[in-house]
């Protein structure tokens, strides 16, 4: 397979004379589209130029200027580089048209942008807060919004050194005093109207069926405390008998505003925070973040570090899929046996992470221009043992264990179907997209690192049901093993870091979007630098968050018992969903 050739520069200014202009600010790229032309532009992009996957939507606040921007990243599912376009709106009355009608995959992302930045998306079908709650005052990612324990705009804080008398944040700002409500809001008398809005957004009630019998739909809330939601996650469903009429995910219970924290951090300080996004695959998160910042500071990675990175990323993929499949089987009712078998393999992989990085899950291993330290002695042998002897055998064993199990097949085949068109429409990425028959893998479509040197197949399945997602993950583990085998054979000796390790990297002004094929899908980091030690804007395109956009449509018409299986097959991690 060859790398797709980069798309030639489009002359969008000629297609839209006088309104669409190339972004010529230093460090920026892409096109500036006026808000009133946005829909027309996006439609042309999708239908004429083939950018069918609108991968990421986010906003930037240019406080103190009266300007906000909504930044879109669009890609082609046939591969190649992406296209950035943005639209500007005044900060005081931030409004842009919603693209939900063209790209339904932006639904949750636009809600997030509204919630965190206060940019209103006109004609959005369900523009409510998504990560914060209704009694929350303001939009936290706006630059003039300060958190309860606010100290300074950027780290390092000045009172830590050289005169660092310890003060504890909770003493300075005691609990109860650290919260602000919107004007006119009384927390004690508050009745959660948001729920009414949520249920209102669900579906219409019908009062009689064709026989004239009076019927009623019922609302069922699964979660937030539910064993099958893989964390604190809530699903509001409207049921007709046992059939799902409408479904909405409700999230934000684990929200900590990772992006605001990231904007306070220096570039390096943010690395350990990325571990905590998708805490099952911290090495991948590190990889994506390091790639994005490296693109911005334009620094190359030594050969050996590149190999180590690939090995770690693929080991992460295997360990993540172990967890995903184990959890999926738990949801299907196998009650822990396959999960524990798979956890054994994951455990062995985590042992490797521990020897390499010092921590099993919060690896914090990647640095800009390399990795933190070389592989300790014997680690390569361990990886070789796993990749050549143990993992292939164990993956086959799981295959033998459950792939032909009649109950698994009955519960999975034909359930939770997502067609290829829908998957692209809903901006699904990763295993979810590939199981629907779209061979889109960023490792091939837009190679990063040294993936173009390795031989592996992009696994695709055609039916887009739960069973295909399971089989696809199994096969992806095999392909990851293949990559690791090649990497173990090919790894050269040499340095693992370009230049001297620096704790304060100089990042030139500009914007960048770095993305990798994470175990759960496209993991993207959008970073906007002003040349200061802290990023001005830091956004994470979280695959498990965006893959949830397709969750509702996938469930409609299914039985309520299938919700857990379908959710399990999407493979979400709440640390990343809620950020």
């Amino acid at each position: 397979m060859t790398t797709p050739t980069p798309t030639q520069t489009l002359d969008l200014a000629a297609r839209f004379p006088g309104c669409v202009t190339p972004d010529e600010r230093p460090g920026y790229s892409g096109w500036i589209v006026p808000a009133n032309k946005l829909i027309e532009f996006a439609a042309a992009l999708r239908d004429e130029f083939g950018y069918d996957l609108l991968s990421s939507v986010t906003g930037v606040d240019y406080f103190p200027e009266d300007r906000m921007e909504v930044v879109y990243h669009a890609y082609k599912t046939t591969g190649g580089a992406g296209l950035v376009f943005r639209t500007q709106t005044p900060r005081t009355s931030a409004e842009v048209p919603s693209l939900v009608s063209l790209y339904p995959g932006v639904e949750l992302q636009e809600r997030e942008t509204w919630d965190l930045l206060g940019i209103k998306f006109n004609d959005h079908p369900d523009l409510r807060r998504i990560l914060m709650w209704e009694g929350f005052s303001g939009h936290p990612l706006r630059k003039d919004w300060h958190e309860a324990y606010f100290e300074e705009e950027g780290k390092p804080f000045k009172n830590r050194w050289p005169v660092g008398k310890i003060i504890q944040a909770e003493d300075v700002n005691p609990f109860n005093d650290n919260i602000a409500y919107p004007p006119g809001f009384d927390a004690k008398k508050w009745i959660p109207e948001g729920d009414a809005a949520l249920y209102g957004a669900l579906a219409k009630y019908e009062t009689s069926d064709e026989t004239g019998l009076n019927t009623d739909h019922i609302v069922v809330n699964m979660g937030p405390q539910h064993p099958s939601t893989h964390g604190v996650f809530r699903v509001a469903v409207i049921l007709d008998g046992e059939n799902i009429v409408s479904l909405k995910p409700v999230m934000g219970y684990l929200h900590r505003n990772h992006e605001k924290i990231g904007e306070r951090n220096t570039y390096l300080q943010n690395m350990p925070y990325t571990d905590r996004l998708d805490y099952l695959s911290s090495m991948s998160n590190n990889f994506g973040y390091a790639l994005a910042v490296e693109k911005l500071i334009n620094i190359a990675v030594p050969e050996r570090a590149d190999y180590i990175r690939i090995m770690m990323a693929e080991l992460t993929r295997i360990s993540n899929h172990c967890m995903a499949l184990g959890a999926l089987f738990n949801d299907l009712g196998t009650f822990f046996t396959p999960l524990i078998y798979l956890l054994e393999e994951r455990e062995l992989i985590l042992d490797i992470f521990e020897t390499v990085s010092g921590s099993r899950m919060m690896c914090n291993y990647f640095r800009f221009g390399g990795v933190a330290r070389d592989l300790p002695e014997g680690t390569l042998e361990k990886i070789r043992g796993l990749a050549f002897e143990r993992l292939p055998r164990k993956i086959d064993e799981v295959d033998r264990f459950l792939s032909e199990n009649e109950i698994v097949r009955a519960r999975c085949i034909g359930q939770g179907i997502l067609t290829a068109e829908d998957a692209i429409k809903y901006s699904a990425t990763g295993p979810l997209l590939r199981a629907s028959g779209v061979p889109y893998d960023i490792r091939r479509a837009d190679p990063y690192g040294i993936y173009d040197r390795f031989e592996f197949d992009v696994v695709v399945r055609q039916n887009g049901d739960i069973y295909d997602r399971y089989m696809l993950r199994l096969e992806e583990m095999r392909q990851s093993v293949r990559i690791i085998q090649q990497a173990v054979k090919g790894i050269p000796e040499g340095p693992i870091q370009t230049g001297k390790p620096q704790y304060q990297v100089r990042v030139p002004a500009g914007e960048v979007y770095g993305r990798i094929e994470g175990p759960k899908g496209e993991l993207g980091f959008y970073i906007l630098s002003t040349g200061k030690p802290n990023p001005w804007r830091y956004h994470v395109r979280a695959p498990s968050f965006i893959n949830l956009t397709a969750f509702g449509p996938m469930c409609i018409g299914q039985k309520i018992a299938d919700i857990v299986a379908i959710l399990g097959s999407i493979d979400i991690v709440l640390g990343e969903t809620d950020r």
Partner: protein
Amino acid sequence: MYGTGILKGLGVTLKHFVDTYIEDLRWLGRKRYGSPEGIAHRASKGSRGIFTVQYPEEKVPLPEEFRFIPFLVYDEGQEGEKILRCTSCGICAKVCPPQCIWIVRTTDPSTGRPIPDPAEYYIDADICMNCGLCAEYCPFDAIKMDHNYELASYKRMVFDKETLAKPAAYYESIRPINATAENAARAAKVAARAGKME
């Protein structure tokens, strides 16, 4: 035939079950449980049968790079006094992602100029995220990550200079490879400086 898939799967479980006994029989005469080689074998690529390690009776050996709350390394002077390697340069406090390190620099009362020795040094261990960046970027090998992870406590854990200080010998015992390399590098630097002086 319907049900063959289930039977095939059950065969896998049965194999795991039987393996447990075969593995125990293989270890007949040797200690599989509660011994370092038993634990090492359970964590190896050939592990089968019982996989779990019975904490706290058994403990998984920690790799050298394992990191937990940092500590300050001190060398012992001629009269046994503790000389912290820390010069209170503040790099650890600046690089710390959750900003949990607080340092008071000593100043010479007569000249008002800073002395390379911390007057106070605090780590708020409840906020520390064990990322290890302080140890990684310390130019004096003065702050290192610990191996002691059994720190559960009812109290708020703010460690001061005395609690954090641990002897260089302890550091060498938990991280022999790193410590040897760093000692050699430091000795080379001292030798180079001495050479320049001459």
